């Protein structure tokens, strides 16, 4: 019994770790490949989660839909809508210094949060969307369905990783790194800097939407509380930088390690006396904030520093 309890704790840990891995890989496409700062990850995540929730949940009078469509359709719609939002914001901001995109991305997250809370016909407001299905739910229940979902999440992580890896090694990835490291040089050899940057931002946004969709299916319920910027945006940044920006393996490792530390501090602070328990969440936030500063100053390359693939240039006599 003890052992199976630990096993299932491990599985639920790996499900959340997998969802964070997708976010982190997506952030790596934006920041690690392209040097684009996104402070509104929670916004894209919310777009994905709500689209998937509305597409796949059963019909209800509380909000538009649900359309009771297959989960795959939900994932595609989630990615598409999130990508469109990313495209719109990138179009405006990528021609300017990265700081402008950072400022605008906070705005995007804020607008989406407002819309989610206020447009009750669409999202059921602060009550949230419920009865979101999990894959193969009709065949498995309870802990088995958790197992199935674990496999499902990690298939998506594998797909995301594969996409990120192929992009990184491709000529497209090479151009992105060139733009990131020396914009003027990349432009001087005729690369369309703005269009490449927009592409990397949109691809990242698509996967952030997919991650949101995954979490909606996992919790089976999604409300505005779940898009807390701190838990999504901030944690994802700490994960990517600690893991190694620019390195896809680092993104996944960072996601799992930081999520493990974050979950463990929760277990530890649960042991504290009750009057400390309320304060413990602030202590956790303070520590993660200080941890980011430590990583930025001493450990910037991360656990798995970026290793650009070798160029396979043949010498011509």
């Amino acid at each position, binding site marked *: 019994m003890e052992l199976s309890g630990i096993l299932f704790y491990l599985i639920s840990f790996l499900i959340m770790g997998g969802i964070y891995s997708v976010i982190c890989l997506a952030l790596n496409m934006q920041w690690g490949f392209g040097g684009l700062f996104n402070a509104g990850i929670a916004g894209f995540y919310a777009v994905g989660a709500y689209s998937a929730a509305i597409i796949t949940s059963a019909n209800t009078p509380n909000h538009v839909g649900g359309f009771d469509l297959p989960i795959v359709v939900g994932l595609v719609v989630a990615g598409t809508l999130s990508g469109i939002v990313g495209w719109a914001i990138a179009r405006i901001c990528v021609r300017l210094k990265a700081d402008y995109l*950072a*400022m605008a991305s906070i705005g995007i997250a804020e607008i989406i949060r407002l819309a989610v*809370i206020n447009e009750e016909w669409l999202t059921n407001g602060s009550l949230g969307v419920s009865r979101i299905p999990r894959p193969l739910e009709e065949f498995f229940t309870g802990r088995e369905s958790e197992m199935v979902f674990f496999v499902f999440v990690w298939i998506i992580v594998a797909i995301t990783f594969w996409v990120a890896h192929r992009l990184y090694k491709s000529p497209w990835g090479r151009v992105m790194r060139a733009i990131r490291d020396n914009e003027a040089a990349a432009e001087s050899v005729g690369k369309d800097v703005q269009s490449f940057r927009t592409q990397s931002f949109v691809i990242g946004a698509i996967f952030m939407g997919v991650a949101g969709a995954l979490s909606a299916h996992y919790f089976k319920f999604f409300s505005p509380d779940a898009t807390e910027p701190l838990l999504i945006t901030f944690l994802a940044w700490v994960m990517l930088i600690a893991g190694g920006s620019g390195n896809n393996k680092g993104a996944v490792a960072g996601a799992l390690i930081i999520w493990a530390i974050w979950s463990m501090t929760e277990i530890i602070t649960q042991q504290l006396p009750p009057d400390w328990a309320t304060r413990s969440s602030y202590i956790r936030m303070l520590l993660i*904030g200080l941890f*980011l500063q430590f990583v*930025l100053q001493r450990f910037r390359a991360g656990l798995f520093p970026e290793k650009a693939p070798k160029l396979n240039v043949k010498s011509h006599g």
Partner: protein
Amino acid sequence: MMDFINFYLVPGITLGAIYALGAVGVSMIFGILRFAHFAHGDLMTVGAYFALSAVWLLGIPALAAIPIAVALTCLVALFADRAFYKPLRQLPTIYTVIASFGVALIFRSVVQLFWGTESQVYSVGFQKPIVLFDSLRIATRHIQIILATAGITLVLHWFLHHTQMGKTMRAVSDDPALASVAGLDPEKTIRWTWIIGAGLAAIAGVFVGLDTDVHTMMGWNLLLPMFAAALLGGIGKPLGAIAGGLIIGIAEEICTYPFFGESLISPSYKSAIAFVIMLLILIFRPRGLFKGRLL
């Protein structure tokens, strides 16, 4: 018509004054240190809570607590610069942006740890509004905030144009390479930038507390309109930032006025105004209204 002035225009100017004071710091830090300071809103929160402690411990009114809040907030900002931003100065500035994102979280969690998360007020009780010309009713706190901001604007203008440090700051903001060739001390300029930015942020924080209440998310929620105000005024143009703040504050309030029987936009979308203005500025006039820098 009087309703429009009493309930929309004056609160709009008040809100604008608060944005303006915050945006000055954002604009100067962006102009001189070249990064978007994401912890500026939470610096306001810190200032507001310092004033709250002074009010509690010394029993003085909130306005009298402002000097204490300003002094302590300046120390906090100088410490944060030394500990978290200075070590990253030689790197691309986007690393400092990420660091400031983390510093915002550090500020907020420390405030939550020491002061708790409940909303607080500086003083309880109802202040009778002042009535002018029979129908113009203005709350005392609005008059205080608006007049104080006007005074600060004059002092800031004098400082920037008539003191050595003010001129140095404008020079560094216009062209840092040229300024260092001219032998101006960059670290000293940076210190003064923090002192002015943090001091005004603390004042703005206290004003928010006077106008509504003090809570731990207050600063973070003001970050978007402050960024928008700084961009609208032009980066590195402190007086432009004040104009930008006023425009955004007034726009946010006026947009909810029922001009044609119903309000232009639903009040719950008020904070979207700042974002829309920000996007329009980035699309059509990225240097802002007053020809700021385009970094």
